[in-house]
């Protein structure tokens, strides 16, 4: 039997790698992928808890996370495309039109 804590550690490590990608990368698309990575790592811990506590709540939460993340990705990518039409760059440090 695999202890619950192993899953949580795996999830935490993946989450932190996602945080690093989110904070350090310049490419907006990779930043989006890092967000997906963070959401997925949380999902792993939720499913693990659901299995070990014999409760369905974790799996339902994962279901909602997937649904809401789909909305987030659709809107986010639409914003990227809309921005790219005006100013063809997807480097976050070059996206500074609002800076005075």
């Amino acid at each position, binding site marked *: *039997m695999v202890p619950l804590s*192993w899953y*949580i*550690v*795996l999830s935490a*490590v*993946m*989450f*932190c*790698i*996602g*945080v*690093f*990608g*989110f*904070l*350090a*990368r*310049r*490419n907006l*698309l*990779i930043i989006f*992928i*890092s967000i*997906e*990575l963070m959401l*997925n*790592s949380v999902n*792993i811990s939720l*499913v693990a808890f*659901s*299995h*070990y*506590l*014999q*409760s*369905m709540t974790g*799996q*339902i939460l994962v*279901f*909602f996370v*997937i*649904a*809401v*993340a*789909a*909305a*987030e*990705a*659709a*809107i986010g*990518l*639409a914003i*990227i*495309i809309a921005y790219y039409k005006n100013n*063809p760059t*997807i*480097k*976050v*440090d070059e996206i500074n039109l609002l800076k005075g």
Partner: protein
Amino acid sequence: MTLPQLFFTYFAISMTILSVLVVTRRNPVHSVLWMLVLFIHIAALYLFLNAEFLAAVQIIVYAGARLVLFVFVIMLLNLKKEKTEKKYQDQWPVGAGISLLMIIFFVLIMGKITELPALGKYSIEAIQSEGSLMTIGKVLYTEYILPFEIASVILLVAIIGAVVLAKKRIE
């Protein structure tokens, strides 16, 4: 080590390596491809945890729809000069420091967890007698019907938002 632990060790090591590959590739398409491999690993881990339905949804929604959408957007944008520019922002050491701090923080919290809530009624036998799909459906449409409806509203808002953002302005 028992066989399940061996399997888990393989998954843990390869998933960590894959995550690092995902966030460090220069080319976004390579990132997406490693993400695809990572998602397949995650789906396998879900199977391990008796969540067949979520494993299938993971592949259909994430790999089948989300990543295809990412590749589609990457193809729409012209990323040729990506190859020569620098990958990381200037403040990347701060990012690395924060993520390291977070790992330490998580591990410290882990040590503090001493007791878990009481076990629920959905044991492996209970789920297997009805099937994972049936169980999750019943819970979703009884206990969680309100969040379910709200999620559908969020998706509707996202559809409208994406259409508004993407459509051409007609003068």
